[in-house]
C-alpha cells in the first residue's frame, strides 16, 4: 500500500471512530426527514446535537479551510468521510440548511472574498445557521442573464437596490442573498454588473412564493424597493460581477451532476418494476417492452456514473478540468428525468398519486420527484444552453446562436 493510501485508511479509522461516538444511533437511516429541499424539520433534540457536533468538527463543509469553519480535508478524505457516513446511516444536513451557501456562495467567497468577508460569512454557513438564496434570474433575463436590469446605486456608505428577481429558490426562508445587479447602466451588457450580498431581513425586500406544478412553493418573486447592501459586501471587483457570477454557476453545475450525495440511495428501479409489474415464469419482467426500455435506462445511468468516476480520477493531480465534465449536467438530467418517467409508468394507475389514502407515500413521492425533476433541464443553464456551451467551448464551433 502506498503512503497516501495508508494515510487515507488511518483517516477512515478516525472518521469511523468519530461517527461511532458522535452520530446519534436513533437518527440512522432517517436522512430524508432532515434532508428535504426546504431544509427539512426544525432541529430539536438529538438532530440538533448532531448538527452542532458536525459543525464543531467542520465536517458539514469538509473541504473548506478550518479557519473558516470547515474540516480542512482533502477531496479524497472527504470522499472517505462520505463513505463512512453512508455506512453508518449518517447524513449531513448542513448543505441544505444553508440553502445555496455551501454549494455555491461559499466556494465563490473562498475564491473572490476579502479576508473580512470570509470571516464574516463562511463560519455561519459552515454551521448551517445562515441560509442563502441567489438572485440572478429576472422576468426578462433568463438564459440571457446578462440582460438583467435590477440596479444598485452608490449611496456613499451603502448600495441602494431596486428592481425585481424571479424564480429565487428559498427566498422566503433565506437570511441572505447573493445577487447580480447592474452598477453601471452605461457599460456594455456584461460589463456593468456586480455581485452584491445583503440580508433578506430588511424592509426593502419583499418575497412572494410561486406555486409549482409539484404543488410545492420552493421559489419566489423577489422585489427590491430601496433595499440596502453594505459597501463591504461587494464580492469581487466592481462591475466585474459577471465573472464572479459565472464562476458561481460552475459550482452550481458541479453540485448538479450527481456528485453531491444527499444521503440514502433509492431502491433499484428494477426491483420496483418487479413489484408493480410482476415477472413471468423465467423471472423476467412481465412487460417485455418496458423491460427493454428499463435496461436501456439502467445502462445509460451506469454510463453516467462511470463517467463521474472517470472525471474524478482524471482530475486527481491535474489542474485542468477534464473536458468530459461538460457533459455531466445533461447526462445527469437525462438519467434522472427518464428514471422518474419510468417510475411512474411502472406504478401505472398508482402513478397518478397526489395525496390521500388511495396512494402510498412512495407513490406520492415518486410523483413529486417526477414533477419537480422537470426543472433540472431548465435551471443551472438549461439543457439547450449546456449544448451551446459544449458546442462552443469544447468543440470550438463558432458562436452565432450557440450563446450561453
Amino acid at each position, binding site marked *: 500500500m502506498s503512503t497516501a493510501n495508508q494515510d487515507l485508511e488511518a483517516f477512515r479509522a478516525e472518521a469511523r471512530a468519530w461517527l461511532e461516538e458522535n452520530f446519534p444511533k436513533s437518527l440512522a437511516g432517517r436522512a430524508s426527514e432532515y434532508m428535504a429541499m426546504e431544509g427539512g424539520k426544525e432541529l430539536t433534540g438529538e438532530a440538533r446535537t448532531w448538527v452542532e457536533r458536525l459543525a464543531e468538527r467542520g465536517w458539514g463543509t469538509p473541504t473548506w479551510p478550518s479557519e473558516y469553519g470547515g474540516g480542512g480535508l482533502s477531496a479524497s478524505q472527504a470522499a472517505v468521510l462520505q463513505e463512512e457516513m453512508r455506512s453508518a446511516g449518517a447524513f449531513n444536513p448542513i448543505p441544505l440548511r444553508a440553502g445555496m451557501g455551501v454549494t455555491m456562495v461559499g466556494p465563490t467567497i473562498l475564491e473572490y472574498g476579502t479576508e473580512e468577508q470570509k470571516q464574516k460569512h463562511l463560519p455561519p454557513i459552515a454551521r448551517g445557521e445562515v441560509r442563502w438564496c441567489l438572485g440572478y434570474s429576472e422576468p426578462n433575463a433568463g438564459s440571457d442573464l446578462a440582460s438583467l436590469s435590477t440596479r444598485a446605486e452608490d449611496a456613499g456608505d451603502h448600495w441602494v437596490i431596486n428592481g425585481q428577481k424571479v424564480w429565487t429558490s428559498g427566498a422566503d426562508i433565506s437570511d441572505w442573498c447573493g445577487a447580480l445587479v447592474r452598477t453601471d447602466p452605461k457599460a456594455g451588457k456584461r460589463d456593468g454588473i456586480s455581485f452584491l450580498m445583503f440580508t433578506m431581513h430588511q424592509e426593502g425586500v419583499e418575497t412572494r412564493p410561486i406555486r409549482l406544478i409539484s404543488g410545492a412553493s420552493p421559489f419566489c418573486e423577489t422585489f427590491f424597493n430601496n433595499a440596502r447592501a453594505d459597501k463591504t459586501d461587494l464580492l469581487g471587483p466592481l462591475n466585474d460581477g459577471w465573472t464572479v457570477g459565472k464562476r458561481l454557476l460552475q459550482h452550481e453545475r458541479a453540485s448538479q451532476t450527481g456528485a453531491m450525495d444527499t444521503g440514502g440511495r433509492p431502491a*433499484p428501479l428494477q426491483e420496483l418494476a418487479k413489484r408493480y409489474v410482476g415477472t413471468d415464469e423465467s423471472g423476467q419482467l412481465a412487460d417485455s417492452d418496458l423491460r*427493454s426500455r428499463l435496461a436501456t435506462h439502467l445502462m445509460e445511468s451506469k454510463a453516467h456514473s462511470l463517467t463521474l468516476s472517470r472525471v474524478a480520477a*482524471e482530475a486527481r493531480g491535474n489542474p485542468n478540468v477534464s473536458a*468530459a465534465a461538460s457533459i455531466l449536467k445533461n447526462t445527469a438530467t437525462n438519467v434522472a428525468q427518464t428514471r422518474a418517467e419510468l417510475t411512474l409508468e411502472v406504478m401505472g394507475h398508482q402513478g397518478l398519486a397526489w395525496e390521500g389514502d388511495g396512494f402510498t407515500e412512495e407513490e406520492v413521492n415518486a410523483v413529486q420527484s417526477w414533477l419537480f425533476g422537470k426543472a433540472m433541464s431548465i435551471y443551472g443553464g438549461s439543457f439547450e444552453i449546456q449544448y451551446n456551451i459544449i458546442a462552443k467551448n*469544447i468543440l470550438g464551433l463558432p458562436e452565432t446562436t*450557440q450563446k450561453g
Partner: protein
Amino acid sequence: MAVLNEEQTMLKDQAEAWVKEVAPVRAFRTLRDSGSDKGWDPAVWSAMVEMGWTGIVVPEAQGGSDLGYLTFGVLLEQTGRELTASPLLASALIGASALRLGGSDAQQRDWLPGVVDGSTVLTLAVDESNRHAPTRTAMKAEKAGDGFKLTGTKTLVPEGGEATAFVVPARTSGKPGDEDGITLFLVRGDSAGIERQRLATFDARGYANVSFDGVEVGKDAVLGEVDGGFGLLDAVLDRARAGLAAEMLGTASAAFDMTLDYLQTRKQFGAVIGSFQALGHRAAALYSQKELTRSCVEAALEALDKDADDAAQLCSLAKGKAGDFLFNMSNELIQIHGGIGMTDEFDAGFYLKRARAVESLYGNRAFHRDRYATLLGF
C-alpha cells in the same frame, strides 16, 4: 481517457503514429480494391507481431507480455480509428483468451507461441444462424473413439477464410437453448471435413461460413471441461466484446473527428455549417455519447484485468453503448457531409459499413440489452 500508466501511454502514442502511417483507411481501401480475399495485408500483420501486439494477453511463460486487456484496448482503439484490417482481435485477443482461460499447460505450450509469432491465426467460430445466440449452439460433437466428431456450420466467422485454427463451441449433450452440454474445441483449419465459404460482405474482410462435416478431433482438442464449456465461452466472449467495443470506440471517435472538422470548415449561407445550432446540438449530443462510451469501454477492460464480479455486466454495457454511439455516429457522418458523404471516394462509407458489421458480431445492441437485464435480475 482513463488514467493510463507510462507504458500504456507509450504504446498508445506508438500505435497512433504507426496506424496512421502504415495501416490507415487508405490502405484498407487498397486492400478492398485489390479484390484479395485474404482479408489483411501480411506486411501489416508481421509489423504488429514485431511490435509485440500479439502477446499482450499471453502469459510471459509462453512468450507474451501479459500486459492485460486495458492495454490491448488502447491498441484496438487506434486500429479502430483507421479501420485497420488484421487478425489482431480474432487471434491475439480472442483466441489467446480462450487458451489463457481454458487451455491446459500443454495446450498453452502447443498453441500460444504460434499466436504470439503470428504463424497461428486463431478465431472463435461461435454463431450458427443469422444471429448471435451462444446458448443456442446446435453443432454436434459426438464421441468417436478417444475423441469427438464435429458436425455443423458456423456463420460469419471473422478471419474464417484464413484462420489456421478455430475455437469451436459444440454440443456434447443437451439441446439448443441449454447452457449445459456445450464443449469448446480447438480445431486445426486443415482438418479433413472443414469447408470454408468466403463471404463477400460490404465490410470487405476475411469473413467466412465454415462447415464441419464429421471433423475428427482427439480428446486433447477439448478446451476446458466437456459439457461445462458455457462459462468459458461466455468469459471468452466477454473479452471479445470488450475488445471489439474498444475498436468501435476508436472507429466512432475518428468519425466524430472527421465530422467536427467538416462542421468547422464547410461553408454555406456565408457561415461555417457548425454555426447552425441544429448541427451544433447534434455535435454536442454525439460528443456526450463519445465520453459516456469511453467510460464504459475502459471500465469493462479494467474489470477484466481485475477479474471483477461485475465484469460480464460491464462488457455488455461496453458493447451496447459502443454500438449506440457508432450507429448514430456513422449515420451522422454521412448526413453532415452531405453529398460528399455518399461518394465512395470519400471514406465515410467505409465507416458506415464497418459500423454495421461490428454491430452484429458477438451480440448486437438488443442482445446486450437483454443480457444486461438478465444479469441485473429482471
